[in-house]
């Protein structure tokens, strides 16, 4: 399959993010119950789904590594998980800012949805601790792959936790009957989601290219030594 060139991806993500920002601040109307602060959700929810997609991508590549022994899969899985952590950090930060506006607190430990997302995030942070505590080689690749596959189980738990929120009301963007909104709000959300997915893919390709180049240079240096 022919890959989209990186500069084209970078331009696409820039255009999509700029369009999303215009729609968020100038086109989408204010929500009747949440008011202006609801505008955080266009990026907050998109970032969360992008982080989940990255973790699922990491698990898929881990599965490829374990099943087909594809030599590229280990590095691809690692980069996916790394992207997931970056997007996950942005979810936590934007979520905390929204909590401060709506609940008056940056963080609420009694809320399952917040704590479970943090657990998911810390679980993937530990992936790096595991990966870098083992010497490079097949053992490290296998351990990392098994860990990344286990992590994907936490995603539906984290997603379901929003529906089990008790004390405070965490807005439910998606229900069993589809999205909980329509009109310009839905259009804006779709653009923001597309922007975040393309941005994540662009950053993934950029990081993967750098990592592969680094690995090739290391091999060359060893060959020349």
């Amino acid at each position: 399959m022919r890959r989209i060139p990186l500069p084209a991806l970078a331009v696409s993500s820039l255009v999509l993010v700029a369009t999303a920002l215009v729609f968020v601040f100038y086109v989408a109307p204010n929500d009747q119950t949440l008011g202006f602060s609801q505008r955080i959700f266009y990026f907050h929810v998109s970032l969360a789904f992008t982080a989940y997609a990255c973790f699922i991508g990491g698990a898929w590549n881990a599965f490829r590594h374990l099943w087909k022994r594809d030599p590229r899969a280990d590095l691809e899985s690692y980069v996916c998980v790394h992207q997931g952590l970056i997007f996950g950090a942005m979810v936590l930060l934007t979520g905390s800012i929204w909590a401060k506006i709506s609940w008056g607190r940056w963080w609420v430990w009694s809320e399952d949805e917040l704590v479970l997302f943090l657990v998911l995030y810390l679980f993937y942070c530990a992936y790096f601790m595991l990966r870098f505590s083992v010497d490079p080689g097949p053992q490290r690749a296998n351990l990392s792959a098994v860990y990344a596959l286990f992590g994907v189980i936490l995603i539906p738990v984290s997603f379901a936790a929003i529906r089990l929120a008790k004390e405070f009301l965490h807005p439910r963007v998606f229900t069993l009957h589809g999205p909980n909104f329509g009109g310009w709000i839905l259009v804006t959300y779709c653009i923001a989601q597309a922007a975040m997915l393309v941005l994540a893919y662009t950053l993934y390709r950029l990081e993967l290219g750098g990592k592969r180049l680094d690995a090739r240079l290391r091999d060359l240096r060893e060959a020349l030594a």
Partner: protein
Amino acid sequence: MTTAEKYVTAAYCVVFAVVLVYVLIMALKLQRLERDVEELAARVPDEDAEETPQEPARVG
């Protein structure tokens, strides 16, 4: 600007800052890789010099 507007702007600035820092880190890494490539290129023997036919020595 209302408090909600300030917080929403802050949230978008945080996203922008995180992406910017990530791209800067990647740019620095790529710069380092470029330096490594130059260093390796300097260590590789010059192929042109090896392939240039030498002038036959005059005998007699």
